[in-house]
């Protein structure tokens, strides 16, 4: 019975035999060098990323299709393998086509009553050399986990359920006006550019707003921006390779292993820290396409101290977004607006 010191030491000895592989050691050193690459030394950082990606692709390609023990299962390995696959993709067409199902889950409160409302809408998108293009979205649906009260119905939850046909709508995030050609082919440079652009608001709709970012917010925005660009941006293979490199350099990434998305497709999952929550991404290891991204948002933070005389907003807020999921049902290249691959 394992209760004495000797028994326990023997019983736990298999854990003591866990040893790192040479490949893991190389990957760690490459990632550490990528993270501390000095601003003006672009070429060495790129060389490290390429070496790491090339090493990782051997496992990734050998693993396809289906699960294979040789496929990287740690977060860094998954992302580096996806980067290597992305780097070998053909040049994009005039437009990137995506069919996306958006799912928003809201917490809705009225007095002591609390409900969850789920809104879904599917849209088709075409984006060209920037987030210029077209979106066609059908009528969405809304469902409640229990019948809502009259007060809850008055709040309303969002506007995504309305049909839409018009200019591509990315929204008003930090990438609203990003020119895709500006995204470098180098992971370290791409990460620096995203960070700088988010901080100075150069691509935001209101670039003079100069927000003051709370700790962790910029880092989350970098991850979100990289995932958005990978999913929706009409980018070249080397640019997509660089963006996977940006994600693989995010500290705190963790593997979700082999997972199934809400559409029933198999992929590999990675979770990235996200301002108190997590951004979960499912990747098709064969194509490097983003199959699904989802985030679980932390409960809304209580209002901070307000100047004297300012009325406190209702707390907790009557409607707050709890979860958001984007399922990329179909992606590909198109030669013209309205054309489907």
């Amino acid at each position: 019975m394992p209760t004495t010191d000797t028994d326990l030491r023997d019983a736990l000895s298999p854990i003591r035999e866990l040893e790192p592989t040479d490949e893991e050691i190389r990957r760690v050193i490459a990632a550490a060098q990528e993270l501390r690459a000095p601003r003006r030394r672009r070429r060495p950082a790129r060389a490290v990323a390429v070496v790491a990606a090339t090493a990782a692709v051997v496992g990734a390609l050998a693993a396809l299709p289906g699960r294979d023990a040789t496929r990287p299962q740690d977060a860094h390995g998954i992302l580096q393998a996806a980067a290597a696959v992305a780097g070998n993709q053909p040049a994009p067409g005039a437009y990137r086509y995506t069919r996306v199902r958006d799912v928003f889950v809201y917490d809705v409160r009225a007095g002591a009553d609390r409900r969850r409302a789920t809104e879904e809408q599917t849209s088709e998108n075409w984006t060209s050399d920037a987030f210029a293009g077209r979106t066609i979205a059908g009528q969405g649906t809304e469902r409640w986990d229990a019948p809502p009260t009259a007060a809850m119905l008055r709040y309303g939850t969002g506007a995504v359920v309305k049909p839409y046909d018009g200019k591509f709508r990315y929204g008003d995030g930090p990438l609203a006006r990003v020119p895709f050609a500006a995204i470098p082919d180098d992971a370290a440079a791409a990460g620096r550019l995203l960070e700088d652009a988010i901080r100075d608001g150069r691509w935001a709709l209101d670039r003079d707003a100069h927000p003051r970012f709370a700790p962790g917010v910029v880092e989350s925005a970098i991850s979100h921006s990289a995932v958005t660009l990978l999913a929706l941006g009409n980018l070249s293979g080397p640019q997509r390779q660089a963006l996977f490199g940006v994600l693989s350099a995010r500290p705190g990434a963790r593997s979700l292993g082999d997972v199934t998305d809400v559409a029933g497709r198999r992929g590999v999952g990675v979770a990235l820290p996200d301002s108190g929550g997590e951004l979960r991404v499912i990747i098709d290891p064969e194509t490097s396409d983003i199959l699904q991204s989802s985030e679980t948002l932390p409960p809304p933070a209580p209002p901070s101290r307000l100047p004297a005389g300012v009325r406190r907003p209702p707390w907790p807020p009557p409607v707050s977004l709890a979860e958001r999921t984007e399922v990329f049902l179909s992606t590909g290249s198109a030669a013209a607006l309205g054309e489907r691959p």
Partner: protein
Amino acid sequence: MASLKAMTTLDHAGTLTVAPPHALSAERVAARALRVARRTAYGVLGDAEAAADIAQDVAITAVRRAGSLRDPAALDAWLHRIAVRAALREARRAGRRRAAERAGHDPPPPADDAALTRAVALLDGLPPRQRAALTLRYVHDLPDAAIARALRCRPGTVRSLLSRGREAVRRAHEDDHGSPDADH
């Protein structure tokens, strides 16, 4: 200026290794950090993939910051501290998200190695700090004082964690296999 102190490390067999100061290379730090952090995280979490991710994060941090370590001989103590902290943080997070994740994700695959599965099963159901204390003692062979530094508690607390951990393992074993005093 680099420290002229030799680097000393206590390996899992209890052997004191003395290395010259220049041996604190990135490869050496990465290998040591991966080894220490994966074993610790595996003991605390019982999940091979989570342990690999934590080991990687700890190792990247270690490689990036090892240059600022004033005393290279303190590398192991530092690694144990950051590895335990990362594993306990992950255990807290995992507890919160476990139910939500199970819905959409496949269960974690069992470890390939049956002996490893049996070893980690021994710690199943124990609180993360007890698992950490048992791992630091019986996997890394650390004395009470070193465990206390890694867990940021008093040596007395370590003794209590170890005692309760051993007792929990004994009870779990009895539940599975019957009491040694019972008639068979």
